[in-house]
């Protein structure tokens, strides 16, 4: 079976576009990815800073403040999840376009006709649908993580 990612019409059409149009699309994706990466790294950086502060506060036996700081860390974990999902989807899209730009690129249809058990990893996953499922499940993201915030307050 052809992986979901390769079946999208925008992906299928890309090799037939003019170089100018291909470059335009690649630039758009690269810009989108750059913003997402910046946000993701910023959240990771905030989380690391919260973790570092928690550690220092615990060493100074300031437990109440340490709990507050740990709460911030938890928030960064949960809030970074949708950004990570989107970042993964866009990065995959960007790299797919980079590969399609190499002269001689062929979709692996023939290969898949001959053998259908080749695993194309993330390309086989419907990132958009799965992202929706994950986001729906994260209406109460702390419970997904198994953390009962109310009990901790």
């Amino acid at each position, binding site marked *: 079976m052809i992986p979901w990612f390769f079946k999208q019409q925008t992906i299928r059409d890309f090799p037939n576009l003019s170089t100018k149009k291909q470059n335009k699309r690649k630039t758009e994706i690269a810009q989108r990815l750059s913003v997402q990466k910046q946000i993701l790294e910023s959240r990771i950086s905030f989380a690391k800073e919260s973790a570092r502060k928690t550690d220092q506060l*615990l060493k100074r036996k300031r437990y109440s403040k*340490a709990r507050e700081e740990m709460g911030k860390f938890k928030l960064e974990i949960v809030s970074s999840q949708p950004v990570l999902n989107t970042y993964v989807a866009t*990065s995959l899209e960007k790299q797919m376009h980079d590969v399609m730009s190499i002269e*001689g690129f062929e979709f692996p249809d023939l*290969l898949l006709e001959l053998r259908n058990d080749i*695993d194309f*990893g993330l390309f086989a996953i419907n990132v958009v649908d799965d992202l929706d499922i994950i986001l729906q499940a994260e209406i109460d993201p702390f419970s997904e993580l198994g953390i009962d915030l109310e009990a901790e307050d």
Partner: protein
Amino acid sequence: MGKVKPIYERLEAMSKTKLDKMEYEHRQHLTRFTQAKDSKADLVQRSDDKYQKLVEKAKKELQQSVPLALGTAMQMRQVRADNLIAKSVLTLLRANQFYHRMMIVLIQDTKAGVEYHPDRVKHLIPAEFNDMFDKSILSTNLEGLLGELKSELDEATEVNQE
């Protein structure tokens, strides 16, 4: 709509000049995809090494401070995501490399008058394509890592409550 002829039959119908030209083009493409694949394989290796270093760092931190290890675990998530993306792209590059290599073999066979066998193409496919991934992103990168973080968070919360 008529059935598309198998590739071998289409090659048999071509002139030698056309086959020579086609072989030359596939050789050029093979070189491009081999270079791209090697470059991506290097990237995957560097990413594996980076992830392993972070794991070691987190393990050391865990012995001294759970919060510090949690901070490193956050960084590990992004590295792992990048690693899975690179491995997926590597498969696509390998598929293209294989396609051009296979075409060269088939063109040469046609020129040499090798008798067509329907299973011949199938046997050219290396078994290594099967073992690229054993888990999907949802079971490793997302849910798996969140699960690991959760148990570590539970421990950290216990420390805070003491």
